[in-house]
């Protein structure tokens, strides 16, 4: 059993009649890089501010190492925050910014100097100690903000969209730096972001939030491959959706019918991440397939694969991959988005607009959902461990 360091129990926060956080239950482990991901206005920043102590919850509790901290002022929580635009003190130089937290604890002299220099060393900013904040680049400011927050040796470091102020190239670089720093310090990071790609690459686990509700908690892979709600499936990456009905089912496969002549078969992938859901004959379901799971073929596949005849409507070259928009032959109002990676092998059989092709996908790559949320799964399945938060 892993040690659950930080626990949020039924945490709620309303501003007037607007409920920003509608009951969040989360458990965060020590040393975990935990992301809170969601669109703007989903309550993720409010959740972080509740953790940081800048807002008091309307109800619910926050426990750090078993101690209730939700009513404590920010500095008594052993949580420090890296603010969205860093909030560095512009009237102090780099060294004094980093020293601020220790000076507030009345740490002076050699002890102060040693620890500030250590912190600056950690973020490789020692040569900038005398510089003014206003003369620093965005990346350098972020490093100072990290050093300033880490100098108080918090148990949890809260990061409020720390990369959003940087341009793309720098964002990629600082993301790696952040990850390295977290691994080196084995420090618990709680990272708020609206950028799904950012969250997927750095996090040990991700909580996806929407309209004040934590919709799903899991690893990047779990969230991408096994979305539990419609919102999660569409917010993380893109996905093709097909309304369908259960035809027949056995223990290890489900046959579903839709607007197409052929039945599609659905099977659980071998990694056990996505077990087959419990279904009944005639039940309405939603078939979901990620764009990169499709293969575009010139002729119908001979293998036991689901396939559809379609024509190419649009081709978008995106560098590492090409995105195709296809219209199904049997059901012209249904279009599919398909992404194929561009390799030397596939380069020769590039398809153009108007081409008649077949799109095929494996039964293991199907996600079946109810009209809103994931269908319940069989009790014995391992996926029960990944409960919704």
């Amino acid at each position, binding site marked *: 059993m892993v040690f659950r360091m930080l626990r949020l129990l039924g945490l709620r926060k309303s501003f007037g009649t607007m409920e920003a956080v509608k009951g969040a239950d989360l458990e965060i482990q020590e040393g975990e890089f935990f992301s809170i991901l969601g669109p703007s206005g989903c309550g993720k920043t409010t959740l972080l501010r509740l953790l940081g*102590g800048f807002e008091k919850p309307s109800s619910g509790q926050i426990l750090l190492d078993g101690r209730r901290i939700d009513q404590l002022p*920010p*500095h008594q929580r052993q949580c420090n*925050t890296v603010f*969205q635009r860093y909030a560095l003190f*512009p009237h102090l130089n780099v060294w004094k910014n980093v020293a601020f937290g220790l000076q*507030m604890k009345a740490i002076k002299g050699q002890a102060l100097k040693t620890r500030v220099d250590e912190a600056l060393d950690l973020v490789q900013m020692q040569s900038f100690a005398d510089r003014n904040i206003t003369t620093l680049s965005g990346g350098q400011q972020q490093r100072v903000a990290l050093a300033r927050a880490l100098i*108080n040796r918090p148990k949890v470091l809260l990061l409020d969209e720390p990369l959003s102020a940087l341009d793309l190239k720098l964002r990629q670089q600082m993301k790696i730096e952040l990850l390295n720093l977290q691994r080196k310090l084995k420090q618990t990071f709680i990272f708020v972001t609206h950028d799904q790609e950012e969250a997927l690459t750095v996090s040990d686990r991700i909580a996806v939030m929407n309209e004040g509700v934590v919709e799903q908690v899991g690893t990047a892979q779990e969230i991408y491959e096994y979305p539990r709600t419609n919102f999660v499936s569409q917010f993380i990456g893109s996905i093709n959706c097909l309304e369908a009905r259960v035809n027949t089912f056995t223990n290890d496969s489900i046959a579903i019918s839709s607007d197409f002549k052929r039945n599609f078969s659905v099977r659980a992938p071998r990694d056990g991440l996505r077990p087959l859901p419990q279904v009944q004959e005639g039940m309405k379901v939603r078939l979901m397939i990620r764009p990169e799971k499709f293969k575009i073929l010139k002729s119908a596949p001979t293998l036991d694969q689901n396939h559809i005849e379609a024509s190419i409507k649009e081709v978008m070259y995106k560098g590492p991959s090409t995105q195709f928009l296809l219209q199904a032959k049997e059901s012209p109002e249904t279009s599919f988005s398909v992404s194929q990676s561009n390799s030397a092998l596939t380069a020769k059989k590039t398809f153009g607009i108007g081409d008649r092709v077949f799109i095929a996908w494996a039964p293991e790559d199907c996600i079946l959902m109810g009209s809103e949320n994931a269908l319940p799964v069989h009790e014995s399945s391992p996926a029960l461990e990944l409960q919704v938060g």
Partner: protein
Amino acid sequence: MAKQRSFPPPAAWPGISWAGLFLLAPMIIVFIYSLLVKGVYGGIIFEWTIKNYERAFDWLYLQIFYESLKLAALTTLSCLLIGYPVAYVLATATAGTRNTLLVLLIIPFWTNFVVRTYALKLLFSEQGPISQMGISLGLWSEPIMWSNSSGMVWFGMLTNYLPYMVLPLYVSLEKFDFALLEAGRDLGASAWNNFWRVLIPLTKHGIITGSILVFTPALGEFLIPDMLGGAKVMLMGNLITEQFLKMRDWPFGSALSIILMSVVVFGLVTILRIWMKEDGKLKPEKA
């Protein structure tokens, strides 16, 4: 390096000629007058002397100068103490409330200054509404005369100059990033530390600008002491006015003006030097 401009750009000419014609030239005239001798019937005699300056250092005039400095300093300090919370409320209010409050702050400017000051005199006079209301409420039994005292002069200056303090402070506070106070709290700063070590240093340009805007005219003020102080309060401004209008001693009045101006300019330059030096390479905040 950029080319050094030896000549002011054409766009600056109107401003420069305006300042030269209406600021610099009169000042030179005043300075020349201060070195001349007073004529018997009020005119001037072209005879060079520094007697006017010697006379200014008479104990009587030094006392008046000290009283003026004290009152101007007191006015500035009280404007700052009252104005800072007001500006803070303005800067942190929602847009709607803020506009209403700003209008309320500016409304007094729509009334003529003399009328406003006279209204204040009536309001606090023996037969005035406040004195009478106190009697009917049983707070005091006899009419009270607040006017014609140095306290009333201070109060008049305070009400008149408060907006000049609030507006620059508001500009500073409005630009202040309040996330910095959260950062301070996060790092363990008490409310007091946050105020002194974060808020005050970052709004000091507003404090300096507001103080200059209040202190400078307050030091030369003559109408408020005249109207609200009765004959009891004599300040530098009154003294100078009197030399020109009643005593017809223009050279002595000019000398007093030059001394007052030198003190103000010297004080300003010193304060600005000290405060701006702390900024180092920081970009000066426009207030």
